[in-house]
């Protein structure tokens, strides 16, 4: 169940369907128990019910506020099943046609200006995607990584005036990108609304906030806004806004192939 918790955040980030078996719907959420009596596992199941999906398309507007200037990217994102996602940059002109493909644990990036495909691996995974506060590694998080965390319910706190659970996630394997995470989960909507990511030394690496939660078909709650701050970088902030989000759509299988990457 732990893996689902972690993946819900990534799903919101990347519009990536993340967890198998095929996810529960919002109606299946274990919301029968009163919020204060829920176990951490029940909380995670409820989050999955909202965040996990079989397929999805969405438009993403990514705004990167840097020290000197603000850049805005628009992407179309496709997600299918547990492991696969694809994304194409629409604007700005400099990045137009750049595509990213994630199949399982592997990720590739197609660079139209040189007509080459770059595999994203090793140290590049932890670099900021397009100079944003969001790393490729953040995008590559998978079920295996999620299984390395152990959740502990720390208590309740108010976030933006709404009650939320505070959950600590500690990695069993210290070599992961974020050995410790703190999450605040909205008690009514079962959506993680805030997250802090820490290094092994205890230094805070990133802070995430999620909001503008909307209700979709089947009663699914989903955040359509996210703000990520890389605490190591200075004067930087990345905002993601999700628009035209559709769940359960039929997607061309070609999208999730390397042929799609280089298709003009």
């Amino acid at each position: 169940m732990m893996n689902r918790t972690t993946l819900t955040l990534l799903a919101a980030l990347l519009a990536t369907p993340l967890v198998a078996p095929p996810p529960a719907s919002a109606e299946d959420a274990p919301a029968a128990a009163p919020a204060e009596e829920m176990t951490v596992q029940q909380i995670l199941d409820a989050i999955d019910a909202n965040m996990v999906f079989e397929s999805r398309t969405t438009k993403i507007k990514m705004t990167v506020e840097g020290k000197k200037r603000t850049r805005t990217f628009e992407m179309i994102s496709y997600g299918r099943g547990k492991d696969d996602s694809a994304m194409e940059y629409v604007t700005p002109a400099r990045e137009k046609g750049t595509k990213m493909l994630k199949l399982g644990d592997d990720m590739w990036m197609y660079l139209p200006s040189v007509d080459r495909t770059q595999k994203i691996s090793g140290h590049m995974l932890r670099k900021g995607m397009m100079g944003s506060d969001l790393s490729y590694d953040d995008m590559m998080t998978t079920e295996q990584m999620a299984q390395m965390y152990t959740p502990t319910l720390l208590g309740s706190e108010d976030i933006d005036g709404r009650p939320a659970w505070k959950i600590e996630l500690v990695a069993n394997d210290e070599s992961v990108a974020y050995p410790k995470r703190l999450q605040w989960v909205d008690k009514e909507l079962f959506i993680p609304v805030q997250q802090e990511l820490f290094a092994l030394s205890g230094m805070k690496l990133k802070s995430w906030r999620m909001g503008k939660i909307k209700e979709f078909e089947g009663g699914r709650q989903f955040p359509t806004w996210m703000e990520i701050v890389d605490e190591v970088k200075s004067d930087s902030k990345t905002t993601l806004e999700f628009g035209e989000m559709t769940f359960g759509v039929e997607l061309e299988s070609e999208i999730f192939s390397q042929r799609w990457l280089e298709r003009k």
Partner: protein
Amino acid sequence: MNLFRLAFLNATRNRTRSLLTAGIIVGGTALFIIAMSWLDGVWGQILEEGTLQGGHIEVVTPEYRARASLRPQDENIDDLAPVLDALRSHEGVVEAHPIIETGATLTVGEEIGDIFGAVMGAEERYFTEYMDVDSKLVEGRWLKEGAGELVLGWKLAQRTGAKLGDEVVLLGVTQDGSMSPSKGTLVGIARSGSPLIDRRVFVDLAAAQWSLDLEGGAMKVLVWGEDREEVDELHASVAALPALAGLDVGSWKTLPPWGGQLGMMDAIRFVLMFMIAFLAGLGVWNTMMMSVLERTNEIGVLRAMGMTRAGAVFLFLFEGVAIAILGGIGGVIAGVLPTLYMSKNGFSYPESMMAKMEFALPTTLYAELSSEIVALAFMTAIFTAVIGTMLPALRAATIQPDSAMRRN
């Protein structure tokens, strides 16, 4: 006059000893000229090449200056045009060139590789007149601006297997940290032995600006005046230009790598000069002291005949100086001849010795002989002889006539 004659006669009485003393002066003077000429020559070439490539004045942002050793990609002069206009129309400025230095992985072929190269973007004139890279081309030609061409250092060409005409893909990062792919046709391969050329990718300024997503900007602007030694005044006037307000303007005399080394070079010169003079002085002192000891009786007689203490001192001083003049002349000849040869023919060293240098230095180094060095060497010879003779001469002056004559 008698003292001079007597001193000269004394100098020729024990010719072996006098020749030994003169030989020490000859050796010291010659060594002085050779060492100083080499030092001046090599250091001069280092400074000449370094300031030719690095400019007499460097204009960057204060944030860049604070992290200059890291070459930060995100601290740039965003609006270059007014800065360049102001500099190029400023009296005393010979030229000003914008520079971009970044990094990229290089690929020749389909698969993007992991061979890293330092990418340098500048105007053609900087590359050809200041870095002189075009003269180091071992294959092909220099790149044409705006034609999507690039020149590679031969080590990069070797590692990537790139051949003339190949399309070379560069995968760098923008000033914001985004992946920045670009490509160019390889038209030339340059080789100098220095990593600054052999491991570099040379592109035109516009290509480097695109790669860094810095249209109309640059990391730094290098400025040259008429004379690097007269940079202080130009530095002050350039720093006061309104168009450069908010930018950091530094001169080569204060910036790394030269800033801290000018004082060090002066110290090296002084220590070298002192060591040579000290050794020569020690030799002179030794032989003159022997002379005084040998002639104790004689000095006693002279003192008994009415020679003053000062006369005794001057007798030995004149003898020492006479030998020093002869030794100094011999030393100048012995030092100038090989130095002249080395200033014309130079000394060549293997390219591999340049591997860790911060700039491209010629593989042949030349001595630089100057009249100042020759004059300084000669004067040092005389001075050394005076100092070396002074103690024995003072000892001679203290000799009592009666006790000296009683010794035998």
